């Protein structure tokens, strides 16, 4: 129960941060939606952890907590890599804009 509360507090922290980023227009609407859906699913999974545990066993995975944590860790890694990919794409776009600015500057 305590672990669930801690996890939910962490999620609330990230969701608050997400809304701040959106208000400051640091992220676009699509990115905002994507992360909001991600954190909402995580929150639902934590709230219904017992049902999830039952589902995990039904799907043929081991019901032991440590295995489930490993699955979560893999998911978290996927999330981090994906987030990194998006950041890279943003930087790449900015690099293209800078290249264009330099290319056109003396010609304008």
């Amino acid at each position, binding site marked *: 129960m305590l672990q669930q509360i801690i996890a939910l507090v962490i999620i609330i922290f990230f969701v608050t941060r997400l809304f701040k980023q959106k208000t400051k227009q640091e992220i*676009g*609407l*699509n*990115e905002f939606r*994507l992360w909001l859906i991600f954190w909402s699913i995580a929150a639902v999974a934590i709230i219904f952890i017992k049902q999830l545990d039952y589902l995990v066993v039904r799907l043929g995975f081991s019901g032991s907590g440590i295995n489930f944590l490993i699955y979560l860790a893999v998911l978290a890694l996927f999330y981090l890599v994906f987030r990194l*990919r*998006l950041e890279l*794409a*943003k930087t*790449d*776009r900015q*690099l*293209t804009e800078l*290249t*264009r600015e*330099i*290319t*056109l500057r003396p*010609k*304008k």
Partner: protein
Amino acid sequence: MPKIACVIPAYNEARNIVRVITEVRPFVDDIIVVDDCSTDDTFALAQTAGAQVLRHPINRGQGAALETGNTYALDHNADIIIHFDGDGQFLASEIHDMVAPLLSDSADIVFGSRFLGKKANLPFAKKYLIYPLATVFTRYILGIKLSDPQNGFRALNRRAAEIIKIANRGMAHASEIQTKTFKNKLRVAEVPITVIYHHFGQRLSGGFRIMRDLLIHKIIK
């Protein structure tokens, strides 16, 4: 008369660029070559051939080069912008057909198509595997109803060029331009064109890369 500018993105096209510029010149007012940081003599040759040559300090891809060319053309009062490949696979004489719907004000953007009757010596794998898959993707996922999903020969009026800002720096720009055309309800025309293949071009892996780039740009928009 409307001012017609031709934007030619070029990367290591020293072998073809002079011929392409020479062939295009009778049909347009301005030729803008965007040299995408070529490692050969493309820049010098294009300048010698009399084109306005812009040079990216680093290689950024065809989509980025086209947007640079569009920006320059708009800044220099172009009324119509042609996108034309630098490898000589298109026929300059068909520019006339491409701009006709724009001159008569029946379209805002004109797409060349290899599938409307004219000669296009498409490689077998492209004709029967890559393009059918690309057509399914663009038609049913992106909602684009055009006969040619990936064609670099197009003509835009000033309004279309101002609305469509190309964000995809790589080959996904072709699908992006088509998507933005339909999203902004621009008037569209398709014109049959001839394509002479000198090399295979986009492979199936390139198609998957295009899908990935479109998805990522959709998220970070």
